[in-house]
């Protein structure tokens, strides 16, 4: 009964989306306010219904209802409840339902809370959101029904990919999805504004909080995903340039550019066409990413649902929405007037530079990701790996970091180059000192990119604090704090990446229990190896006593075996210290009772994710800072009315 109710809720929601689209279209076309009045309630009801459908699917997973095909193929009655819960979206159908749910709920939120937008643009935006949702409803209802039954039901399910059985991964996809779909709101805003020809500062101010929120969630999602890959895959790396990773990086790059350009539009009424374009591109990248992951046209370590028929459905949606949006852009943008002019030396110029650099990186990642596909179309098989991305995107990213340090020190509209130079004196001195120090101590031990990375990270870290210089810190707006913290986060991440690639020490040994291993100042004593049983796995666990001249600590790298489906995963042991992480992976038994051990000492590697969290925190502060004033005013207005 639960499954049928869920399916019914989904059909109803789809019908409401259609109604919402028709109402908005007919209302705007004929100028009938009575039709437009029903758009918001429709959007809210649609959001509630999708949430109900998703909650019902979660219920089915938690109850291990094996008569539902999706549960039977992706869950197992023996599984811990957290992974039954996470199993809901750890598969194709469930994650598409999550996508539609987030879109429905976001649409309801736009209907309920958006006050800054002109009414007709608001209605056009809701119509646009309904149009996008409709495609995804069709996809779910006609080609990937998550509520389909199976007869006869199997006694036990097939289980969830054990790699995904990790608390980190239970929450990583929903966070990313919130980000992806948040960008769909920005996309709908852009469509709404193009339709009503209202691309101006007020539109940008209305769109900005949605972009910021989506961007914060994307940042968190990517950071979490990177840390998950780092500790769960057991290879000691934090970024693989895998198509699935790129699928989340590309929307993030576009959203970062959009975030800055929407600020220019909101504050200075410039970069109108560019902002609309980026809003279209950001969501397009979310959809392209989803398509690449879901269609199976690119091979990846964690792509799932390899299925050309579903792929062609998403491809059709892609062509329809993105192609439609770009055509609308071409058709309408000519009638949008140019925004306010600005001088060459100005904050605006710096933000344009930032936008261009981000776009170039986006282009590089996109080409690198699609290159295997392009060559395959001409009959060759190649794969593009990390060296391409590192070598080409690396230098541009470093340039971007410099722009990031300079930008906030330049005034809006016009500035003098000499004055800017003066403000950059302190960061320049830091850069010089760091270079000299590094040159003295580490030259020859590090590559050129890590070297430059460290120098730039430290000076950008200094420069990013400069906007707080000589200010009353308590009276500095939260938005400025947000910017400073986010930029500082970029420097922190960069420092972590540079340290990791410059100073990591790796050791691969075969050791017997009782042996002692020395590496990078650490002493590791291999105490014993013993079997262990968990909820739905068995493992071999090595107990190791490690110390670096202090009190010894016990760590436990494991090799875990899951029976359904049969898979072995390695659970790395991580020991975090203030100046880095010790990372130990237990490998196979070699011979005569010796075991393979892979040991890394990674100085300051944790800074990478700390930086990611700082970036997201900065975004959240900016969001609160921008919105708080509006909320306060609204709240006061509400109180005085009552």
């Amino acid at each position, binding site marked *: 009964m639960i499954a049928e109710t869920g399916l019914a809720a989904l059909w109803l929601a789809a019908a409401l989306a259609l109604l919402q689209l028709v109402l908005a279209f007919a209302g705007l076309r004929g100028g009938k306010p009575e039709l437009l009045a029903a758009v918001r309630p429709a959007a809210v009801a649609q959001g509630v219904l999708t949430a109900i459908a998703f909650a019902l699917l979660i219920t089915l997973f938690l109850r291990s209802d094996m008569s539902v095909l999706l549960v039977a193929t992706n869950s197992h009655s023996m599984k811990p409840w957290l992974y039954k819960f996470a199993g809901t979206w750890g598969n194709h159908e469930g994650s598409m339902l999550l996508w539609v749910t987030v879109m429905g709920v976001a649409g309801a939120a736009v209907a309920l809370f958006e006050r800054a937008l002109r009414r007709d643009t608001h209605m056009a935006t809701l119509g646009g959101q309904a149009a996008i949702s409709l495609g995804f409803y069709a996809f779910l209802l006609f080609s990937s029904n998550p509520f389909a039954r199976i007869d006869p039901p199997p006694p036990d399910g097939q289980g969830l990919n054990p790699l995904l059985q990790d608390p980190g991964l239970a929450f990583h996809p929903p966070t990313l999805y919130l980000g992806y779909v948040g960008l769909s709101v920005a996309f709908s805003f852009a469509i709404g504004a193009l339709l009503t020809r209202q691309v101006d500062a007020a539109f940008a101010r209305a769109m900005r909080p949605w972009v910021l929120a989506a961007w914060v969630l994307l940042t968190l999602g990517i950071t979490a995903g990177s840390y998950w890959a780092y500790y769960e895959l057991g290879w000691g790396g934090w970024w693989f340039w895998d198509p699935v990773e790129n699928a989340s990086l590309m929307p993030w790059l576009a959203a970062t550019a959009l975030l800055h350009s929407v600020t220019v539009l909101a504050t200075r009424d410039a970069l109108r066409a560019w902002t609309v374009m980026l809003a279209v591109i950001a969501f397009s990248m979310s959809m392209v990413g989803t398509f690449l992951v879901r269609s199976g046209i690119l091979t990846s370590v964690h792509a799932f649902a390899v299925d050309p028929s579903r*792929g062609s459905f998403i491809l059709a949606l892609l062509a329809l929405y993105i*192609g439609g949006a770009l055509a609308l*852009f071409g058709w309408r*943008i000519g009638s949008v007037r140019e925004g306010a002019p600005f001088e060459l030396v100005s904050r605006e110029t710096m933000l344009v530079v930032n936008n261009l650099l981000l776009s170039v990186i986006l282009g590089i990642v996109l080409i690198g990701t699609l290159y295997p*596909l392009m060559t*395959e179309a001409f009959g060759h098989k190649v794969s593009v790996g990390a060296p391409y991305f590192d070598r080409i995107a690396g230098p541009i990213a470093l340039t971007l970091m410099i722009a990031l340090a300079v930008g906030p020190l330049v005034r809006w509209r016009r500035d003098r180059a000499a004055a800017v130079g003066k403000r950059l004196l302190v960061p320049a001195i830091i850069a010089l000192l760091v270079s000299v120090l590094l040159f003295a101590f580490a030259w020859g031990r590090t590559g050129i990119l890590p070297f430059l990375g460290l120098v730039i990270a430290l000076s950008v870290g200094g420069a990013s604090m400069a906007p707080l210089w000589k200010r009353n810190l308590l009276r500095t707006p939260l938005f400025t704090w947000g910017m400073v913290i986010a930029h500082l986060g970029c420097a922190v991440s960069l420092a972590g990446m540079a340290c990791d690639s410059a100073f990591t020490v790796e050791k691969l040994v075969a050791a017997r229990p009782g042996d002692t291993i020395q590496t990078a100042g650490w002493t590791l004593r291999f105490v014993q190896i013993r079997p262990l049983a968990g909820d739905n796995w068995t493992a071999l666990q090595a107990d190791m006593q490690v110390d670096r001249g202090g009190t010894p600590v016990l760590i436990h790298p494991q090799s875990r075996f899951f029976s359904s489906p049969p898979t072995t995963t390695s659970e790395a042991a991580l020991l975090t210290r203030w100046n880095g992480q010790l990372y130990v992976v237990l490998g196979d038994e070699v011979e005569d009772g010796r075991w393979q051990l892979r040991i890394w000492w990674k100085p300051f590697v944790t800074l990478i994710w700390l930086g990611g969290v700082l970036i997201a925190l900065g975004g959240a502060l900016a969001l609160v800072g921008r919105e708080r004033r509006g909320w306060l005013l609204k709240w006061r207005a509400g109180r005085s009315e009552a």
Partner: protein
Amino acid sequence: MRKLLIWLPLVLFLAFIGLFASGLFQPDDRIIHSRLVGHPLPAFTLPAGASDRSSLASAQLATGKPRLLNIFASWCVPCAAEAPQLMALKQAGVEIDAIAIRDARLDVDGFLKRYGNPYARIGLDARSEVQMALGSSGVPETFVIDGKGRIAYQHIGDIRADDVPMILDRLRDAQ
């Protein structure tokens, strides 16, 4: 100029769509074929993989008569599905040797007890090294070895009932 720039994204996007479509409808070919087909087997010596079967060395595979080399593992589900076909091939007089991948002798014994034992010899490849050397990427896989110890054919995935005549043809061709 500006007009051109405005429409450029749409043109680029349509090119991408074309590319995606061509990728989507291209025959899916992600199976890794061994480069050794037509070449002699790499040299290897493996310890015995089951308690009542002898060990396996590459030299033993060039006996003048074509034979099968089956790559399997006791933990592999399709291998169990494949077992009846291997038994049928054995009934038909085919000599089959095997390499057990990442396995333990006790587990292999259990597997053979349960699903039957079509193998003349079983080598234990505890670290998949020989498997890699053979250019095999998964279990089960089956190689047709000709009388001179050369790989004549590589069958990826389990041998289904309707593959059996084809395998017999391949063996005859390898004569």
